[in-house]
C-alpha cells in the first residue's frame, strides 16, 4: 500500500465523519405506558437519579419500599442540583438513561418539550386519589394536554411570621398579611422595636431564593412575568403594575432600613439565620429552611401565611420534584411500581420528617396536622400554588447574571424601578427567543 498525502487526508475525513455520527445519536424509544400490563409485576433493578437537595426524601421512600417487598431493588444516584440538567441530557444523548428521575419540577418542561420523558397520563389517571395531586406540579409537567411527570414532593415558599415579635409591636398577623401595604406598615412597627430587630428579610444577591420568594407576590395578582404558551413566550415585565408594586414595596423596605444591611450582599448562604435568631418579624422562605434550624420555642411562635399580592390575593411557589420516566428506560414496569408507592398517602405523610411537604391534599389528616402544623397551610390551599412553565426559567431566574436578579438589585437597592423593569423586559425577550429557537 502506498501512503500518499491525499490518502492521509482522506482517512482523516473518514475519521471525522465517524466521530460526527457517533456524537449525534437519535431519540430514545418511547415507553408504551398505555398497555394494560404497564406497572405490574415488575422485577429487577430500578435506576433512579435524584438531585442532591432532595436525596433525603427519596432515600426514605426507597428504604420503606425495600422493607415492603423484595422483587424490585431501587438504586438511587444523587446528582448535584446545578449539574442535573447537563448530566441527564448527556445520558440521554449517550443512550444510557436511568429508569426514573426525581426531577426539579421547574425544569421538567426542558425535557418534556424535547420528547425525553414518557407520557404518564394514563397511569396517573388510574392512581387512587389522582385528583388530590398538586395541580401546580401537574401543570409544570403538562404539555399539549398530556402529563409527563408524577408529583412527588413539594418545596413551597411561604411567609413565616414571628408572632412573638408581632405581638410586642401590636401587630395582628391576619390583618398585616392581607396586602403589601399592610405588610409594610407591620414591618415598620416591628422594626421600631429595637435596632437589631427588622421587619423583613431577603437575600438581596441570591437569584434563585429571590425568584422563589418574591414572584408569588406578583402571581397573587393573577399575573406573571412571562406570558404566552411554551414555545412562543415573551416577557411581561415592563408596565406590569404588580411587578412595579412589588419592587417598590421591597425598595421601601430597604430604603427605610426595615431589612438587615447584610441583605445587600447575601447570596443566600446566610438565608434564614436572622429569622431563626428571632430578629425578624416576617420572613418569606421554604419550610425546611426554618423548621430544620429554628428552636422549638420559635416554632411555637411561628405562624405561616401564603404570600399576599400588592392588593390582596395569595400565592406560593409550587416548587419541588416530579418523578419522570425516561423514554428508553430499561425497567419501566418496576419503575412505575416504585413511583406509585412514593405518592401513596401513607408515604407522603412521612415527607415532613425529611423537611419536605406532601403533594396531595388528602395527606393532611388530623394526626398529620397535629404533628406538622407548619406543613399544612399550602396543602389546604393547593390551588394557590404556581410556578411558571418555561424553557428559560433557570436562565432567567436562577443565574447570577440573569435579568431577574439584575432587575431586583437595580430596583430595590438603586431605587430605579421603572428603568429596571424596562431593561429586564428586553433581556427576558432575548433569552426567551434564544431558548425557544
Amino acid at each position, binding site marked *: 500500500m502506498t*501512503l500518499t498525502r491525499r490518502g*492521509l487526508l482522506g*482517512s*482523516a*475525513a473518514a*475519521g*471525522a465523519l465517524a*466521530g*460526527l455520527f457517533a*456524537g*449525534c445519536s*437519535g*431519540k430514545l424509544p418511547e415507553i408504551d405506558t398505555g398497555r394494560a400490563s404497564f406497572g405490574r409485576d415488575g422485577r429487577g433493578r430500578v435506576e433512579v437519579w435524584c438531585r442532591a437537595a432532595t436525596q433525603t426524601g427519596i432515600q426514605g421512600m426507597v428504604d420503606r419500599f425495600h422493607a415492603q417487598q423484595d422483587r424490585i431493588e431501587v438504586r438511587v444516584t444523587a446528582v448535584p442540583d446545578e449539574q442535573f*440538567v*447537563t448530566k441527564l*441530557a*448527556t445520558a*440521554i*444523548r449517550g443512550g444510557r438513561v436511568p429508569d426514573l428521575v426525581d426531577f426539579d419540577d421547574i425544569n421538567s418542561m*426542558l*425535557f418534556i418539550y*424535547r*420528547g*425525553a420523558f414518557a407520557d404518564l397520563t394514563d397511569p396517573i389517571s388510574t392512581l387512587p386519589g389522582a385528583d388530590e395531586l398538586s395541580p401546580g406540579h401537574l401543570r409544570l409537567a403538562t404539555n399539549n394536554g398530556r402529563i409527563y411527570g408524577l408529583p412527588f414532593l413539594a418545596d413551597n415558599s411561604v411567609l413565616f411570621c414571628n408572632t412573638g415579635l408581632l405581638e410586642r409591636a401590636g401587630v395582628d398577623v391576619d390583618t398585616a398579611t392581607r396586602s403589601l401595604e399592610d405588610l409594610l406598615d407591620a414591618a415598620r412597627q416591628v422594626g421600631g422595636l429595637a435596632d437589631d430587630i427588622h421587619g423583613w428579610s431577603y437575600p*438581596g*444577591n441570591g437569584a434563585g431564593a429571590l425568584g422563589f420568594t418574591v414572584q408569588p407576590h406578583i402571581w397573587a395578582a393573577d399575573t406573571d412575568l412571562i406570558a404566552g404558551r411554551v414555545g412562543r413566550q415573551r416577557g411581561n415585565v415592563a408596565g406590569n403594575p404588580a411587578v412595579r408594586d412589588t419592587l417598590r414595596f421591597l425598595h421601601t423596605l430597604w430604603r427605610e432600613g426595615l431589612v438587615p*444591611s*447584610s441583605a*445587600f*450582599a447575601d447570596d443566600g448562604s446566610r438565608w434564614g439565620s436572622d429569622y431563626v435568631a428571632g430578629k425578624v418579624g416576617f420572613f418569606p422562605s421554604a419550610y425546611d429552611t426554618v423548621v430544620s434550624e429554628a428552636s422549638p420555642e420559635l416554632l411555637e411562635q411561628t405562624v405561616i401565611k401564603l404570600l399576599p399580592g400588592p392588593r390582596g390575593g395569595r400565592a406560593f411557589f409550587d416548587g419541588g420534584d416530579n418523578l419522570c420516566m425516561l423514554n428508553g428506560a430499561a425497567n419501566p414496569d418496576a419503575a412505575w411500581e416504585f413511583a406509585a408507592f412514593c405518592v401513596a398517602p401513607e408515604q407522603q405523610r412521612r415527607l415532613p420528617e425529611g423537611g419536605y411537604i406532601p403533594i396531595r391534599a388528602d395527606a393532611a389528616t388530623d394526626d398529620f396536622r397535629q404533628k406538622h402544623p407548619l406543613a399544612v397551610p399550602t396543602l389546604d390551599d393547593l390551588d394557590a400554588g404556581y410556578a411558571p412553565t418555561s424553557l*428559560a426559567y*433557570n*436562565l432567567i431566574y436562577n*443565574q*447570577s*447574571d440573569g*435579568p431577574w*436578579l*439584575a432587575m431586583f*438589585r437595580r430596583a430595590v437597592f438603586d431605587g430605579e424601578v421603572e428603568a429596571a423593569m424596562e431593561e429586564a423586559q428586553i433581556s427576558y425577550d*432575548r*433569552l426567551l427567543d*434564544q*431558548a425557544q*429557537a
Partner: protein
Amino acid sequence: MTATLQTETVRTPATQTRRPRSLTHPPRTGLLLVLPAVAFVVVFVGVPLLVAIYISLTNFPLIGDYRFIGLQNYLLIFTDPAFGRSILYTLLYTAVVTGPILVLGYLLAVMVRSNRRGAKLLRTVFFLPYVVGLTTLSFLMVLEAQPDSGAVNIVLAWLGITDGSTAWLVDGVLGTILICALVVWGVSGLTMMLLMSGMQQIPSEVYESAELDGAGWWRTERNVTIPMIRRTIALSVIISVIGSMLAFTQFFILTQGGPGSDTTTVVMAIYKRAFVQLQLGAATAMSLVLVVIIGLITAAQFWLLRERE
C-alpha cells in the same frame, strides 16, 4: 534521432525542478516517521475541529434532535448584544491585567535571578500562588472579600481607606478590580519564572562590560537585559494574553458573571449558552469565533514582538 531530441526537450524542465532522490532518507520513510504525530493531531485536533464546525452549523441542543441551519448561529452571534459585551469585557480585562503581570513578573525575576542567599526561598514564595492555583485562590477570596468579616475589608478599614463594609462581589467595577488584583498576584509567579530563566542565560561578561562602561541599573536593564530576553518577554505576554482571553474559573467562582452580566467573560458566556441554555450548536459557533479572535490577537502579537534587524 528527431524523436529522441523531442523526448529530451520535453523531459528537461521536469528533471531540472525535481529534487534528487536521497538514498539514505527515502520520502516514504519520512512520511512513516511523522505518521504517529500526524495521526495524533488528526484524531485529537483535526476531527474534533471538523465536528465542531459541523455542530456550529446546526441547532444542536443538549437534549433532542438537531437540524442543519447553515450560518444562522453565526448571524445570531453577531447580532447578540450579550456576546458582544462579553467579548469587550474580556478584552478590557486582558488589557488591564497583562501589563501589571508582566511588570510585576519582571521585577520579581530581577529580585530572584541571582544565586544570592535566600534567592531560592524567594523564588518559591513568589511562585507559590501560581502553584496553589486560581481555583483555590478564588475560593479563599470569596471568604476574604465578605463585607465586615473578610480580610480584604478588615485591612482596608484598618488602613482607613474604607469603612470595611464594601461588598466587592456584587458590584461590576469593584468585582473586576478585585479579580484583576487576584489574577496579577496569582499569575505573576509564572512570568517571573519564564523571565528569570531568560535572564540567567545572559553571560555575566555582558553585565561586567556594561558596568565598566558606567551603565547604571536602569540603563543596564533597558539596554542589555530587555533586548536580550526579548523572545522570552514575547512568550510571556502571549501566554498571559491567551490565558486572560480564556478566563473563566475566577469569574465563575467569585461573581458568576454578575451582577447582571457586568463581569461575564466570553468563555463564561459560551459555557452558559452550552450548559444553561443547552444550545451546543450556538455555543460551538461562539467558541469558533473566539478561536479566530485569539488567533488574530496572537498573530498580531507575534508581528509586533518579532525580532527586528
